[in-house]
């Protein structure tokens, strides 16, 4: 079963417009959620994690347990935000601690 769903494979927004990358998850316990980002020709790197309740590069994400969502938001998109974004879930499975990634959303910010 897909534990992390990112419904949008591609997302384009204009510079300065708000952006929201959707992520929904399926997990019966208390998961830990993350967003990872991969800029062109760079390695995949951690953007933010819900337990830190931080804002990185203007991005925020709130864990909504009722809606089982962890959408990534930024009020004003910048061209340098163009990248591939992955939502990930960490939880204790019968095989131990395990990470599950969504299929990713490719964000393009149009100048």
């Amino acid at each position, binding site marked *: 079963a897909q534990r992390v769903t990112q419904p949008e494979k591609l997302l384009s927004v204009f510079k300065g417009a708000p952006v929201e990358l959707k992520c929904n998850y399926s997990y019966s316990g208390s998961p830990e959620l993350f967003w*990872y980002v991969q800029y062109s020709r760079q390695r*995949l*790197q*951690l953007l933010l994690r819900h*337990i830190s309740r931080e804002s990185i590069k203007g991005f925020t994400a709130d864990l909504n347990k009722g809606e089982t969502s962890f959408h990534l938001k930024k009020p004003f998109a910048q061209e340098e935000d163009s990248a591939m974004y992955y939502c990930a879930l960490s939880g204790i499975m019968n095989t*131990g601690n395990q*990470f*599950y*990634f969504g299929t990713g959303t490719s964000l393009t910010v149009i100048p």
Partner: protein
Amino acid sequence: GAGVSQSPSNKVTEKGKDVELRCDPISGHTALYWYRQSLGQGLEFLIYFQGNSAPDKSGLPSDRFSAERTGGSVSTLTIQRTQQEDSAVYLCASSLGRGGYGYTFGSGTRLTVV
């Protein structure tokens, strides 16, 4: 080391040949993961190690794929009798093995099967 190191960074091989991909995780990271990233696709989970054991091999696409980890450190992913559909970027990540710390990824090995 300071980060997750993968080698080689690029590998071109002929169809039918075997290849070995290496991952050197961050020192002290007990958990190690292999993923595959194909062009235009997301991350495909392959295998997970906790120490030297692999409690989850469910992502290995066929019996041509195998992986091992020795000394709780370096891991090798082996692909036998490579096929063109094996062409992808193979990513390794490590973590402390407990939730909340996230992964640190290597820069990947780009495998091209011709």
